[in-house]
């Protein structure tokens, strides 16, 4: 091995990342080359500081906030379920949903479920989950070529599921994010076939409007397995974001253009900007947001639908 080749490999040598043949070649080279040995010395003397400093800690207040956020998340997902089966079934029987969980708890009181059935159920659920995940990876999502192209130009980490998105949604999202439509592919967004499908995929339950003033559903999208977007005709988009709570008082203090309204007993914030649809204006015209059951819900109008109309839609949500 020449000096330049050794230099290139010294760092990996120090990290124990070389194959045994290369490793041995470097050992032999270092015995006779003072210059390369000096470089290795320098690299080695850096090692004690190439670690997380001992005094480094997450700030206590942040650690505490995370703890609270996780407590809430745990409570929301698992609720007070005590049985293994209901814990494992939280995908389908979320807290607050009807039927399922109560029925299972009742059954257990009457006649305990044998262990082998529990074990079989666990295995079935695990296999089903893996099967669903694999199917999505294999089949992918058909449709938008523009987004597909963007996806292909990038290697996606294994845990990210990427789907295609509808052009209309891309326009809205790219406008909101001030990015070019082709860069929206950067987000882990999937299109789901229906709101029911979204309910199956998400870890939370969410209310949907029962009266949209005749506006038809345009599309349902999930981002990062957590944020849900439901788009209706007329430029109405509802966004559900789990894990946030809106502090109405603080928001009113710091944003004088917001005003408070009441949505089904919840304090909500509204903003009326009175803008007509304008491709140059990325922001929504009117908006309405509130917190409900651990979700932040916001409705935006991208055309000329007024706040009153958004409130009607919000009030019809069940």
């Amino acid at each position, binding site marked *: 091995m020449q000096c330049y080749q050794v230099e290139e490999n010294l760092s*990996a040598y120090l990290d124990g990342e070389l194959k045994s043949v290369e490793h041995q070649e470097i050992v032999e080279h270092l015995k006779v080359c003072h210059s390369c040995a000096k470089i290795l010395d*320098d690299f080695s003397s*850096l090692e004690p500081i190439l670690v997380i400093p001992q005094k480094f800690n*997450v700030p206590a207040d942040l650690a505490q906030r995370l*703890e609270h956020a996780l407590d809430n998340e745990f409570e929301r997902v698992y609720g007070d379920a005590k049985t293994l089966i209901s814990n494992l079934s939280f995908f389908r029987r979320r807290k607050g949903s009807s039927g399922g969980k109560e029925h299972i708890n009742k059954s257990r009181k009457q006649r305990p479920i044998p262990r082998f059935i529990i074990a079989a159920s666990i295995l079935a659920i695990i296999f089903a989950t893996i099967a669903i995940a694999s199917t999505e990876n294999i089949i992918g999502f058909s449709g938008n070529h523009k987004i597909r192209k963007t996806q292909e130009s990038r290697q996606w*980490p294994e845990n990210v599921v990427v789907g295609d998105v509808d052009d209309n949604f891309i326009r809205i999202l790219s406008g909101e994010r001030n990015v070019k439509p082709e860069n929206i592919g950067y987000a882990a967004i999937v299109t789901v076939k229906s709101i029911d499908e979204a309910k199956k995929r998400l870890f939370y339950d969410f209310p949907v409007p029962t009266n949209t003033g005749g506006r038809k559903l345009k599309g349902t999208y999930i981002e990062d397995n957590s944020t849900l977007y439901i788009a209706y005709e007329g430029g109405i988009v509802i966004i559900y974001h789990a894990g946030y709570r809106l502090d109405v008082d603080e928001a009113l203090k710091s944003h004088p253009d917001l005003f408070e309204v009441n949505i089904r007993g919840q304090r909500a914030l509204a903003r009326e900007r009175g803008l007509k649809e304008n491709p140059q204006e990325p922001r929504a015209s009117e908006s309405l947001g509130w917190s409900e059951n651990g979700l932040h819900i916001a409705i935006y109008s991208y055309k000329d639908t007024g706040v009153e109309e958004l409130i009607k839609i919000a009030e019809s949500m069940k």
Partner: protein
Amino acid sequence: MLLDESLVEKTKSGNKQAFEELVRRYRDPVYFTIMHITKDPQDIDDIFQEIFLAAFRSINRYDPNRVRFRTWLFSIVKDRIDSYRRPKVQLILMEEFLNEMNVSRRQGIGDSFAAAGTEQALQSAILSFSEEQRLCITLKIIGGLSYEEIAKIASIPVETVKSRISSARKNLTKRILYPLGRDASCSVIK
């Protein structure tokens, strides 16, 4: 001590303490990574919380037979940091609403570091690297990840990881060991 993957299995069965233990194990390295990669210090707290919430929400999709837990977790870290790197990542109006959550903002990236000169020098050196180099060297610093795992997290070939860590070391040598340009005998820092 239980393996991470065993704690994951317990979490999947609804054991809250198991996930809390995983958080305790990884909160410092995760925070350290975010601090060294994220450009905007104001995003650090948000990204930090979102990572663990996202990990919890998707833990049922994690398959221990494919990757180790720490590789999976740091893939989420990388994803989240990437998502904040977009020109304007949050929906503008939603951000305005969510900003009212009274999240105290860090004044500067260095707050959590001890005042010791070397650590500051290290931090300032790392922050001067390219984003790609920062990610690789930070994942190396937090320890326990092989080049192959770093490659998986960063979505780049192993050879690229190798060369990025190597050049990061060369840069660190130059900035920390020979900040005044002494010792010209060291060929890599010429």
